[in-house]
């Protein structure tokens, strides 16, 4: 931890964003532990002691994966550690304050066409934000590309979606996959007659 004399630098936990010393009061201390052991072990002497006691802990795990493992004994340890590591991601459930468990949303883009006035329609794009796309930017791009109005609208259940005026059903998939390579084509769905259909 390097400290400048003037604006003091505070070490913030990369996991829960609190200053490292408050991790123990954070929403999920367990999730912060590996980070603490690496970055701020001096703040939690108990934790380090605990970690040292159990030989197969995350620090040794990391050390070994760096490439110190040589002996058979070590190999055994890594195997054990990796099995321990494999069981971990299962518990990756986000906890909201109050102990509620938040389900992870499935990453998919859903495109729907809503007809209004019989011959005019609006194309609704949902779920782009799940891929880390900024919706305001996306709506601007869509509007520019298709030369229509496109806006970010609050849909049902507080989720934000993009409304694009006009029927842009057929070009939109190509456009989305081209502009945001993070979005795979097979994660884009159309809604046709109330059924979800894969776009490509």
């Amino acid at each position, binding site marked *: 931890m390097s400290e400048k004399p*003037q*604006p*003091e*630098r*505070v070490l913030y936990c990369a996991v*829960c*964003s*609190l*200053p490292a*010393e*408050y991790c123990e*009061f*954070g*929403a999920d201390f367990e999730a912060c532990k590996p980070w603490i052991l690496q970055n701020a072990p001096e703040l939690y002497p108990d934790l380090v002691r605990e970690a040292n006691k159990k030989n197969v802990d995350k620090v040794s795990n990391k050390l070994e994966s760096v490439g110190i493992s040589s002996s058979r004994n070590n190999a055994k340890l890594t195997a054990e550690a990796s099995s321990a590591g494999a069981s971990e991601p299962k518990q990756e459930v986000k906890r909201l*304050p109050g102990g509620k468990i938040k389900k992870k949303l499935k990453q998919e883009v859903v495109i729907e066409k809503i007809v209004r006035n019989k011959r005019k329609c609006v194309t609704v794009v949902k779920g782009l934000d799940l891929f880390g796309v900024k919706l305001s930017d996306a709506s601007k791009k869509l509007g520019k590309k298709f030369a229509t109005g496109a806006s970010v609208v609050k849909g049902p259940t507080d989720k934000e979606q993009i409304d694009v005026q006009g029927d842009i059903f057929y070009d939109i998939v190509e456009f989305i996959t081209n502009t945001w390579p993070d979005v795979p084509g097979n994660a884009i769905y159309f809604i046709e007659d109330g059924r979800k259909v894969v776009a490509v």
Partner: protein
Amino acid sequence: MFRKFSSDDVSAQNQVKASVQRKIRQSIADEYPGLELVLEDLLPKKSPLIVVKCQNHLNLVVVNNLPLFFNIRDGPYMPTLRLLHQYPNVMKKFQVDRGAIKFVLAGANIMCPGLTSPGGALDEQVLEEKPVAIMAEGKQHALAIGFTKLSAKNIKAINKGIGVDNMHYLNDGLWKMQKLE
């Protein structure tokens, strides 16, 4: 106060005119004499100063998309915790005992006994209705920003009920909003 706070709560944001900027800068300098030297770095005269108005008569002072100060109605300007962590000595400090940390981080107001118990500490000079930094036993960084309801002397004398209102604490909505657009 900021328990649930997100960009949805912003009702208007605008770049304020120079005279208002001057006023804001002046009142911050008056409130926090320790900040005066760095104020020029924090609120450069050149870069636009934006005041974000939110619900509940809340104003945020934003520079370069970083929320730096907030105030309620015409109350004093208070720094955000991220700013306070950088300049920890500008505010008067109260310290709560270890048992209180959990509750303060859940947004509870600070009760007198938590400040007067052996783990707590009070700055005797603080009067009522003043912003203070809430520190914690055994920790070096502030965990909340409060607004005193009682003067320090009264807190000691009464030793019951709410002593300091919790305005802004770690991991609340404002803390999570690192950048504002």
